[in-house]
């Protein structure tokens, strides 16, 4: 279930009640998206090894102290990718040309839908992990903290993301745009299951930051 409050937060409502037409637009955009898109995902689990400020997930070596910290205590991690696919970008582009007010709502809905789709796909990893007594850390993506987005290149290659139609531009931006790549740590610690992403982020004055 896509989180309506999350959509309103993306639209800048900051907890204030939304008007009827915005609420209607949200339902209509979500319906249009859900009917049109075919979300897809990939994941592979690898052992994690640490060396200094660097961490390696299988053969995927990353220089990032923040990612290393995030994965501390994890013996394994999943490389995970998901995308709403090309159709979502088509609908966003079309809304932007036809009506910008719908376009911003569509954008927020697509972003929230991407998150909920990731949560659903991630269930599969959680179930596999649970069989082995392991729990999931939150998704940690290239671009968070000091985990540079240039790692998208290797990430996409190792996961063979072309199979789900996920690619990137010269500047390491994911295309289709409504896509996520993330490292998900697997750990025996039960309590570590949720760290709010905003708390980890350094953009303290981000307008979308959760209070």
């Amino acid at each position, binding site marked *: 279930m896509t989180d309506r409050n999350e959509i309103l937060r993306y639209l800048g409502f900051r907890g204030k009640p939304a008007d009827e037409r915005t609420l209607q637009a949200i339902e209509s955009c979500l319906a249009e998206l859900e009917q049109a898109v075919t979300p897809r995902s990939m994941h592979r689990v690898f052992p994690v090894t640490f060396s200094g400020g660097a961490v390696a997930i299988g053969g995927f070596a990353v220089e990032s102290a923040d990612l290393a910290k995030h994965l501390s205590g994890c013996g394994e991690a999943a490389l995970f990718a998901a995308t709403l696919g090309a159709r979502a970008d088509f609908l966003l582009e079309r809304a932007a040309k036809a009506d910008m007010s719908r376009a911003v709502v569509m954008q927020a809905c697509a972003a929230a839908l991407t998150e909920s789709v990731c949560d659903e796909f991630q269930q599969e990893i959680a179930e596999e992990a649970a069989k082995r007594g392991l729990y999931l850390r939150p998704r940690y993506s290239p671009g968070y903290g000091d985990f540079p987005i240039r790692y998208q290149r290797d990430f996409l290659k190792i996961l063979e993301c072309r199979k789900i139609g996920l*690619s990137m531009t010269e*500047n390491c931006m994911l295309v289709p745009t409504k896509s996520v790549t993330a490292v998900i740590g697997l750990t025996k610690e039960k309590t570590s299951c949720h760290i709010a992403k905003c708390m980890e982020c350094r953009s303290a004055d981000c307008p979308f930051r959760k209070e």
Partner: protein
Amino acid sequence: MRILEDLGKRLLFFDGGMGTLLQENGLGPGELPELWNLSRPEIIFDIHSRYRRAGADILKTNTFGANAIKLHGSGRSAEEIIFAAVEIAKKAADGALVAMDIGPTGKLLKPLGDLAFEDAVSVFSEAAEVGKKAGADIILIETMSDTYECKAAVLAAKQTGLPVFATMVADEQGKLLTGGDLPAAVALLEGLKVDALGLNCGFGPEQMKRLVPQLLDCCSLPVILNPNAGLPRSEGGKTIFDVNPQDFSAAMEEIARDGAWILGGCCGTTPDYIAALVKRCAKIPPKPLQKKNRTVVSSFAKAMAFGEKPVLIGERINPTGKPKLKQALRGGDMDYLLREGITQQQKGAHILDVNVGLPEIDEPSLLPRAVSEIQSVVDLPLQIDTSDPRAMEAAMRIYNGKPLINSVNGKKESMEAVFPLVKKYGGAVIALTLDENGIPETAQGRYKIAEKIVKTAAEYGIEKKDILVDTLAMTISAGQENAAVTLEALRMVREKLGVFTSLGVSNISFGLPHREHINAVFFTMALQNGLDAAIVNPNSDEMMNAYFAYCALSGKDEKCMAYITRYSEQKAAAPASVQGEITLSEAVAGGLKESARAAANSLLKTTEPLEIINTELIPALDRVGRDFEQGVLFLPQLLMSAEAAKTAFEEIRASMGQEASRSKKEKIILATVKGDIHDIGKNIVKVLLENYGYDVIDLGKDVPPETVVGAAQKDGVKLVGLSALMTTTVANMADTIRLLREKLPACRVMVGGAVLTPEYAKQIGADFYGKDAMASVHYAQELFKAN
């Protein structure tokens, strides 16, 4: 090529997977398999030889990713790798054919990604040419999940003159990753004249088997199927496939009996699978190909067949008689044209005509641009409408699908220009029944020309099914027999010549008052006489009513469902659309587009346009903007108001006439910087700036610094707005500002985007940081007031 001559006489067999076997030999995850052609040739040779011994007729070279893009940074060139790969395969071939294997670039093409269509063609051309030089017998384009990239590869491969096979990867519903369906992909590939087509990868033979009927149902060419050894799953970091050679060959036998001609394997299959397959299927006689005599055009998403139901071709994207569109085209304003496209689709058009021909316009560059941009927001097939063969070719080349072409006629010159293009790029073409002697006055005369066109097309290898004849509606105000002649010719063409028909319906009423009455009745008469497609205005209720009523009456609307859906909804919606008389400022405040339009029009009867703008519109926008800034209103509401104001502006501007509306508006350039493809923030700013009367030059996204500077120089622009979303692209923003400072020191720069802060903006040299869309409006107002 002995084996290709066998095609159709016996089943042919491809080899199986390469990657799985290389992994068994130690290929690491992320390592490029193609490099092994140079470093471990003996292993590649051994794999080819094993496949040959298993009975494969065609060996795929180990060149799936051997293109300049994927090899970038590997230290090796595509050329040396392909040469080595083809040589190894030829050495192992022992009478088998060698197929130069071409996989996708791994990048998404524009407009979704950042790879330009012609750049993709160049990358594939390099690979195909080297493959040919090295001695490959066939080019196999495989695992294509995007019809557009596949088209680029096929165009490149066809240049070599070698036979071209193409296989796509679909999901279990038969959809490609980019959303297209199988009939659309088949229409495109058949149009490009590949020699065989089909599916590979994605899943195992069981799942593929379920798609075979769908594929054979629309395909007239030999079909290739190269499935995986079942579905992959990850086990301890290794990929395992769940179908064994016996089950694989059993499912493939059914596929062969259904009618596929060329069978093999993809991921997870090994020589054991191919041996089992050959053993089980070699004796099965290929099922004869069935020519599908269907007239089909397609977009990237879906195919559209003629003959089932009359097809409506939207006529609104054509500047003839449309001053607003003319003005938009001259000013390079694509948005207007795109909105016309979206509206026509919403109104029920099945195909959109695209004509941008104006005397002072460079059509060969504008038409392909229009076609490409329309395809980024409309998924209907397009009708490329031009009399300039260069514009036609440019548009056909970049079109993602099989287009409808408007038009060819019976003149030798026209046929010599158009038919080679249809042959090369594929398409269905509208044939006008006129020639060097003009338009015949009799039905018989027009029929003769249609016959000549069909015959000449056949000489080019263009089948009758790809021609739709237009028997030319001529205005009845110039001759009262005109309608009768057109309809008689239409009937003859349809019955005696056996081709589908199309008409530009509205010509019939030229010069008469209330043309839509005549148009609608003539349209109905033409439908009754067998009209298959009509170029109409989908915004005209009278035409659409005639269409829906005709379909219901002629049994072409099952249980009248289309009719009922359309008209019961309309009735229910009626009260909501009558929002009563409210003032323009109320309409803007409430974000009500239609009310704003109505209010603007009623004000225009009594008030000067400029006065409406200054005393009604701008103050209303100011109030909304203030409420937004104070947190009373939020972004969606602000933009609803902006859209309502925009509608009112359009009405007001139309009433001001061209000169007044173009005069003296301050120009502002907006661009999302190079490398950045997230442009929603820029688009929001654009709507608001336009509301406040600025002439926004929108350069789009991923815009290089030189383009920004060039555009600013050209129009003497004093304010440039730049957006960037990512930290990585803020560097490109800084570069753009630096170049602007150097070339145009007087030009001001405002910036915005998620990762920017006032400090950061200052650091990269911007004059102003806009924290939201209203902030940029205030800055522009201040700047231009001061000037």
